[in-house]
């Protein structure tokens, strides 16, 4: 038998267009996803040099970052409006398919790709967006690029890329009840930090990963970039194939069986070698809450805000984070009150996320003084949730039920956390000012966010005697 290979090596070898000593490889790109924020200058570049989009049939655009999630067609901000109109005009001019604001396929780019079956195992996928790593959940090699690279892919359907190093993260054991995929990835980043993945593609392996649903896998791969890795992926298996069956852009019947076989063959071979391997035990993971201003600054919900005086390194950074967050050293996490709750974003806005949050919310009431928002990841997630009555559960409890978009994950539209106020958020970045200038973000799972909404502060979701997670 030939040398065992990792999935990354297999996908890479299949996509090298040109190889030459002293240069990166010219890598073919199968799927290019586009949104309104990082594309206008790329299209403008094409126009200025008289170039065309090489493969409009491998390019797909949507609007997500700027879109209002209430009063859909009232875009007060003229600059946002201009950006959306620009995307529309560009897609029209260059023949690129667009799911615009009123289109049934509209949604966050990393939610709709998988939903439509555009995302498939073995594909190279890029988007001018760092959370493109999400698509790795399917065993695709998917990574974020800058706007110049967007222009490059539009013009050439390829990119100059150096072969990445591979990092295996092996997750043994199983996640406990009430412990979610979000807690898993936060715990990994909490343990190893925000830069251990730089220069690597992460492959998540192990029993706990195999047991995750596709939507949970997307949550994990989504946050690979928060560990510094441009891409994170999971070898395809029966779960992957089952999810994709019947999706719009996936073949049907015999052709599906054929392609499914090719997908499964991409999985990393037994004995394949990685440049590095790290491991973590799922059984030891508890529900996580971030206390600081980067995703590694997290602790289990039963824990406390750290004391900078006792820190081994980056004391200044920790001190600055605690100050920005308006917390005290050694303060217990459960004592932190929240004023806003945001359930949404490309990390946690899919149907299963909303279902799990609704389980916690059912029959309860949003705590006084808390403003709670649910923003489905796509129009189709919204429709599906409404079909099973999830909207009623949320609305009855006092949540706002919104239209699909990025919303309060980065607050480019009107969904903003005011300065100094605190938000329990299911998104992926707790950077300073991310949800609004001066806003304080705590990253949590949808279940933990829902529980915080009801109680007005963080609580251990495991005290709710129902089955969640797993």
């Amino acid at each position: 038998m030939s040398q065992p290979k990792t999935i990354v090596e297999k996908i890479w070898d299949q996509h090298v267009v040109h190889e030459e000593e002293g240069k990166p490889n010219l890598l073919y790109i199968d799927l290019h996803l586009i949104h309104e924020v990082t594309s206008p200058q790329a299209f403008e570049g094409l126009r200025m040099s008289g170039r065309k989009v090489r493969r409009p049939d491998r390019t797909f655009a949507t609007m997500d970052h700027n879109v209002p999630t209430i009063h859909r067609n009232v875009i007060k901000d003229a600059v946002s409006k201009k950006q959306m109109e620009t995307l529309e005009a560009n897609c029209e001019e260059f023949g690129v398919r667009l799911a615009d604001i009123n289109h049934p396929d509209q949604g966050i780019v990393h939610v709709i790709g998988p939903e439509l079956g555009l995302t498939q195992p073995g594909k190279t996928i890029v988007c001018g967006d760092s959370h493109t790593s999400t698509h790795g959940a399917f065993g695709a090699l998917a990574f974020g690029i800058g706007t110049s690279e967007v222009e490059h892919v539009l013009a050439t359907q390829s990119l100059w890329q150096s072969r990445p190093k591979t990092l295996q993260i092996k997750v043994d054991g199983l996640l406990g009840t009430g412990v979610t995929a979000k807690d898993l990835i936060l715990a990994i980043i909490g343990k190893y930090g925000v830069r251990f993945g730089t220069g690597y593609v992460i492959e998540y392996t192990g029993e706990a990963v195999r047991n995750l649903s596709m939507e949970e896998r997307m949550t994990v791969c989504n946050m690979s970039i928060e560990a510094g890795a441009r891409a994170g992926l999971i070898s395809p298996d029966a779960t992957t194939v089952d999810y994709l069956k019947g999706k719009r852009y996936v073949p049907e019947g015999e052709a599906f069986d054929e392609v499914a076989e090719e997908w499964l063959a991409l999985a990393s071979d037994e004995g394949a070698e990685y440049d590095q391997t790290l491991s973590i035990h799922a059984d030891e993971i508890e529900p996580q809450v971030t206390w600081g201003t980067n995703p590694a600054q997290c602790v289990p919900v039963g824990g406390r805000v750290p004391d900078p005086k006792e820190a081994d390194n980056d004391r200044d950074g920790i001190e600055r984070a605690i100050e920005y967050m308006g917390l005290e050293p050694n303060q217990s996490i459960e004592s932190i009150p929240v004023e806003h709750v945001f359930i949404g974003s490309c990390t946690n806005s899919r149907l299963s996320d909303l279902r799990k949050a609704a389980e916690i919310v059912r029959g309860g009431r949003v705590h006084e003084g808390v403003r709670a928002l649910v923003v489905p990841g796509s129009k189709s997630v919204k429709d599906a949730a409404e079909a099973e009555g999830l909207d009623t559960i949320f609305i009855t409890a006092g949540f706002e039920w919104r239209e699909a978009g990025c919303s309060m994950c980065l607050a480019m539209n009107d969904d903003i956390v005011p300065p100094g106020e605190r938000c329990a958020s299911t998104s992926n970045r707790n950077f300073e000012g991310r949800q609004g200038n001066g806003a304080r973000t705590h990253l949590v799972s949808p279940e933990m966010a829902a529980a915080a909404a009801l109680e007005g502060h963080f609580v251990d979701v495991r005290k709710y005697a129902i089955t969640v997670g797993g």
Partner: protein
Amino acid sequence: MEPIKQHKGLVYPLDRENVDTDQIIPKQFLKRIERQGFGQFLFYNWRFYDDGTPREDFSLNDSKYDGASILVGGENFGCGSSREHAPWAIQDYGFRVVIAPSFADIFYNNCFKNGILPIQLPKTVVDQLMEKASKEKYEVEVDLERQVIFDGSDIEVFFDIQSYHKEMLLNGWDEIAVTLTYEDKIDQYEKQNKGVKTLGIS
């Protein structure tokens, strides 16, 4: 793109780790559809109060650093969002070189497309540069051809850079034009369809 061969300039030290692109250019400025004019918004939330007046507690507002063109940062510089608005803002403000002990991958790549030279140096050297620049007006010179950076007194260090990136900056290449010389290879690849049957969207 403007080529860069040698560059001599004033150093601005930003002694923070994990400076993310949300800080380099906050989201409220990402709505613009132009490529120019982002320098005024660089580090906006750190540099200005809500009413737009400069914060005296942020070092870039210190007149000592007026005209700085070499930015020295901490570990993992440029992490987070892929927004190329970050290097656009850095370049438009007047920086041509960014030095740090480590960079986030996407930011690092984006620099080369915009005529910015990112230089990775050992932390001990970066700390030295930081210290000197925080005390007084401090200039260093960068020679990309020889891959060295020196200050004319006690610092002279070699830095690593991929030859592809080096050539790109030295020549100020339009990368797309370079790639299009390989167009026949791309055509050929598409005909062979080496990969798993990756389907188009139509």
